[in-house]
């Protein structure tokens, strides 16, 4: 299955992936008006320190602990993609306790949010990958 992989050697730390993610999931029409003045909550996050930077998002694990731990049956695997049904999430955050990557997070409304490889927004390449100017984030089979 194709997944998002990050090569930290090429990450510029520009945070564009965060904006592209937030925009892709917003349903808005153009990025500038949608994100202007908004405190974005992207599903991919850049970590920086001591001369390194890289983006972290859901690994779509084959054996996902978040799904196994979910107490409400709100997380499920659909064709390999780990998806969240926000209407079933009761904000307990057990998935946050389970995820080794810290890639599941509370959203503004309290339900958890996570990368769903843009399957719910559009088909094809995830927005973070499509917009990465240095090819540091790729969508491929490994």
């Amino acid at each position, binding site marked *: 299955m194709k*997944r998002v*992989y*990050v*090569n*930290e050697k090429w990450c510029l730390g520009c945070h564009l992936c965060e904006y592209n993610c937030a925009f892709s999931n917003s349903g808005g029409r153009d990025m500038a008006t949608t994100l202007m003045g908004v405190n974005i909550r992207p599903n991919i996050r850049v*970590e920086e*320190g*001591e001369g*390194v930077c*890289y983006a*972290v998002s859901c*690994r779509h694990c084959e054996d996902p*602990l978040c799904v*196994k*731990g979910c*107490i*409400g*049956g709100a997380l499920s695997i659909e064709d390999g993609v780990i998806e969240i049904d926000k*209407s*079933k999430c*009761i*904000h*307990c*955050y*057990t*998935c*946050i*306790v*389970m*995820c*080794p*990557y*810290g890639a*599941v*997070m*509370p959203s503004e409304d309290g339900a958890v949010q996570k990368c769903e490889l843009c399957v719910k927004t559009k088909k094809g390449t995830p927005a973070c990958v499509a917009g990465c100017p240095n090819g540091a984030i790729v969508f491929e089979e*490994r």
Partner: protein
Amino acid sequence: MKYVIIGNGPAAIGAIEGIRKKDKKGAITLISKEPHHTYSRPLISYLLLGKTDEERMKYRPDGFYKDNGVDVMLGVTAESIDPVRQTVKTDKGKVPYDRLLIAAGSRPFIPPMKGFDAVEKKYSFMTLDDAKALSEALTPETRVLIIGAGLIGLKCAEGISGLCGHIAVVDLADRILSSILDREAAAVVEKSLREHGMEFYLSDSVEEFKGGRARLKSGKTIEFDVLVTAVGVKANISLVKDAGGACERGIIVNDHMETTVTNVYAAGDCAQGTDCVTGQSRILALMPNAYMQGECAGRNMAGEPGAFDRAMAQNAIGFFGLHMVTAGAYEGEVYFERGEGLYKKLFYRDDRLMGYIIIGDIRRAGIYTAMIRDRTPLSGIDFELICKDPSLLPFGKKRRAEMLGGVKN
């Protein structure tokens, strides 16, 4: 192959999913006492809070049993097992098995209390039916007395807080949530619950119930209309125990979820396995553990070997928007941080993280959980950095390439 599963909670569902990863054809029969489609037990308090409904509480979609080729017998109670003939005796007849899983969970433990039998309106808080019955007994004036300030008692309290007039909670322990919080952390949460109008009587217990009053050991009295007992749970072990299988507080299982009875497995709240943090044999009555034990049992029942040896305490819970996460064992040296919206204790010993308690800002706590589970040597990472802020930075480039780049070193 004929699989029989007793239970319909996460351990049972995990087993079905585990079996079907390996064996798409074998016949699976599920027997469960509760007459409901599989639902999320912890959500019963959220149902009363109005944050979910019976439809959304379903742990798996309506088509789950059919899609997985499971023959379901709901509202049926398993009474005993015959390990020689390999049959389960139920109140609706006998069911033969080749492999049997006991995923029967637990039941409320009610300590002997004087005058208890004469209390008219008394409830437990374990099942969907319990929750519905309790909510029907409540009016905006009702005074509720809850015995037990553990996870279930306090989740019940939160759930009914908008449906009744007053809530008093009594517990023998000196603090609330004593199974997951230390004294300081418990004080933080207790303060918040008091602000929501709850009253606590700690280090205390009921001496006698009489005429709508509970007289406590301390001499205090509490007037109440409805009583909820949430002191603790007892594992449902009798099916295996009566068949001669090894049991202590729970049904003894190895890392493959096998009991000492041939072809009989156990998982979830009724099973007692090894806690990977402490090495102790104990019941870990939590949802993630139930699912993973069940899944492991299912795979093994279907002939795919593979151990589940990563069982540990791991819990996330919140009350009125105050979130807390806990994991592992609270042993060793302590990293302590307290600030605006954060209470954090990390416990470490012998070059490994043993456990944590975090209240408030719980983001990315799973990174700590993984360190406990994987026994990550602390000498190999930037420990100071990770104590302050859980991220992947402290793990270094090489480990990160495995985590994020799918690179196998």
